[in-house]
């Protein structure tokens, strides 16, 4: 499974289950850029989730990536 597929089909449903949202943006070498929206966008401890995502990708896709997390907050929470 590609990293893109993994983000979209394996990680996304789990993140959604907590009101969050993740979108694959790009994979440039080992840098995986993802966009976090929903509850993730304002999560105070998102970095922990990012580390977990890196671990999951390593475990299931056998790839070592560094996640570049982009938060897209809704306008009403962008303060």
């Amino acid at each position, binding site marked *: 499974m590609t990293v893109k597929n993994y983000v979209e089909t394996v990680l996304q*449903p*789990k993140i959604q*289950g907590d*009101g969050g949202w993740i979108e694959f943006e790009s994979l440039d070498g080992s840098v995986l850029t993802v966009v976090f929206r929903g509850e993730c966008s304002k*999560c105070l*401890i998102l970095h*922990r989730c990012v580390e977990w995502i890196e671990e999951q990708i390593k475990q299931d896709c056998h790839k070592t990536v560094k996640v570049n997390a982009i938060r897209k907050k809704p306008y*009403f929470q962008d303060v």
Partner: protein
Amino acid sequence: MAHIKVVRRSMRPEEWTDLRFGWLKRHIYADKYEIDNLMIRDARQVSEMEFEYYSDDYRPLKKGDMYFTPDGTAFIKADVNVPKELQGKELWFSLKTAAEICVKINGKYVGGVDPNRERMLITPYIDDSKTLHFDMMGYNRSKPDDERNPESLSVRGCRQIFEGAYICTVNHAVQDLVWDFELLLDIAKSDLFNEDYRNFLNRELNNAMNFIDFDSEELTGVDEAKKYIDEVVYANTNYKGSGDVALIAHSHLDIAYYWRRIHAVQKNLRTVLIQLRLMDKYPDFKYTHTQPYIYETLEKYYPDVFEELKEKVANGQFEPVGAMYVEPDCNIPTAESLVRQCLYGQQTYERMFGKRVNNAWLPDVFGNSWIMPQILKKSGVEYFVSNKMSTWNDTNRFPHNNFIWKGIDGSSVLACVPPTHFITWNAPSQIQENWEAYIDKDQGGQTMNMFGYGDGGSGCTEEMIELMHRFDKLSVMPKCEHMGGAEFLEKNLKNNSNLETWDGELYLEMHRGTFTTKSNLKRENRRLEYKLRDAEILSLMRKEDNNDEIRALYKKLLVNQFHDILPGSHIHPVYEDAMADYRELNSALDKIIGTGSKYFNTLNFERDALTFIPNKKGTSTRYGVKGNWIVPHIPAMASKSLRATKGDSSWIEIGDRVETPFYSISFNADGSIASLYDKKLDREWVDGDFNKLKIYTDNPGNYDAWDILPNYKDKQIDVKVEEPLELCELDGETATFKTVLTTEKSRWTMLVRVFRQSKGIEVENIVDWQEKHKLAKAEFACNVLTRKALCDTSAGFIERDTHRNTTWQQARFESCHHKWCDLSETDGGVALINDGKYGVGLLENTMSLSLLRATIRPDVTSDMGMHNFCYMIMPHADNAVAAGINNLAFQYNVPLVKSDAEWSLPDFAPLYLQAAKLSENGKMAVIRLSEQNGTRGTIKLDKPVKLLNMLEDVQKEIDTIEYKPFEIITIGIEE
């Protein structure tokens, strides 16, 4: 002298008290023994009781480890030998966590910990072996409303750091003093209490705290501080409060919201366990719990806990409330759905506990339809409770808290709209706030104050009860009385001749977007409501005994009418679950309905409106299906073979104007109508934008899925015409004109149909909707002078003002309607009939039908994608009632079915056959009839029948049905 702002650098005495209060709380636990052999296994819940495990086995869980995963369930276990030094003592299990954890000890679920409480008593489970086997099941779901509990806000998130689990003893002297300080500091900090008393408290709490020596190795002075508070603070009766407040323990549990329905099973388990343990400790504690559906899940999956619950119901501590199966949205479901909420809800309680309840408990629903009082009353419900109108209304203060609510048919229930939120934590300031906000102090009796954490369940805490036990020591507090929900209602509302009456819908001046958000849910719900009706009618006609199957299907629909599912205020997986349920329902109902050689009319009046009949060889297209437009002329509850008439296109002339047998029409390129001249009535119907698609920016803020702001019309976005309107399909019955409209992101195909044999003009919309923060409306400025619009409620119509004279009309800039709305003069008007839309704005001569929204919270992709929906513009002579608009709207929404079954009962005209089913006991046919036009009359029957209530209890025998405006009548017919 110049004023200089002084910035204090030294600590105020109150801050010194607060600081020491924090130190005091660190001494609550006397002994702590860390459980260091915990093991954890991660999983994800995939159905109500199924888990997909991430590993084959458990791994160690140590303090400082990360635990929980997104949407994850963690199973945590340990065998703990109670240390010798703790044996014989009162022991507690302590685990500080942001998660929601159900705790099983020695094979039995016994309690829970969550962000609102970190410990539970374990002494009762310690046997001679002195070994405890812990099995825990935890969930860590984002709970956006935890802003109400600020302590849990900082720890919200999917990945948590494990802070350790302990066996401990509690220093009760310290704990008692902590509760005293919690109580008194809340008053000291609240502007709602007398300033002099607060100064007194600040002084004396400081004095009390001075007894404690925080530098001593063993905290000394605690008993002296407690004694000082008793003798100085509680003994002071110089400051008198006023008020009479009833404290009702309750936990609001959203069946789905920021979590899926499957997760509510364990949220409920945890909530129930915690309340049961509180009942063990505090024999005077009573707790109210709603939603028979959620009781069913406990009974099914955790029967041992359910048996415990039943014992507490029997002893009066655990109180089932709320006759409805779930707490449904009370705007969008039809009358029959609301009847079934009561029928199946009461049936469930009766089976479980041997009794029904006499109240509807709907604290969080987004306004309540005017049709409800009658449905409640005829379902054994005397009392109604709903909080939102008092605290959420954005414009007007709802003028009652305890009152009589009169319904559309004139029947009434006793109602309570408590003055404050349904989630409070029993702080004195919250109780005082409730009393001050209570508007019926002089005639309503006590005011209702609910306490207990909620939304995702959780409920009351030890602290809430301990605080409550101290209230009568404080002369400054209102008089407080802890009681059950039904007890409050009986005590204060029953036979209260002073109550005032509210005659009308309970319109919530907020959450107006929920009539429109997630339009697919609304449309499927509408379709399935009528499909269930058809399935029951046909099953009855064929004498099939499929009550169990139909009841199960109905319940599935009812659960999805929950007030955060059908209104659209939920995360994406909840939407996916609902749509999956709808697909399942659709398929099951198709099987029940079956097929036949003829078309059967399940409506109990002649089907005389032009109807689209699918046919692969048809010459028209609708919803992507080929077929023909036919006037069926099928009598009530009868069947007939239908054949399309072959005709040519001579009925229509298409030039600068389109000439049909009914109209001379001037279309604009975007599908809007510049002129709709009625040839028969000799009048023009258009006076401004008519069938005009308008897309507005829609930025309501944090409550994105819920709200539309009154200024939504401030900014409109450009809608471009990509393909101007032109004829795309023509046969002997209909001509379809097509236009394609676009925005930067979306593509909107509008198909406008005119007919040879119908005055209706149908508009089909095929939309690739990719907007953000937009509201699409179709606007109809009619050449009609009226100050009232009529709106269908599903059980009669409601008149709504179209002016903005007062704040009450101004606040209702968007309201809920069902199948149709209408603007009419006495001799003619324009009706708008829809097949699944509910939101409408009514202003002067304009109806604006809300079509689609594009919200991003709670669901980032809400309403994105393809949509296909229709509405019918129906100009008419006379007013809407005389023009038979309601019957046309039924025909528009209830398709003909293929069946050879035969109806052997009367047609009960002119009442609407709302339902025909086998009785719940299988012994008679139940017929539910609804007067929809505001008329009065009688129907003479051939033979006597039983008059029933909506729970199918026999009231009396009748041979004539006497009906009055908007009445719903249920009868039972024995073979």
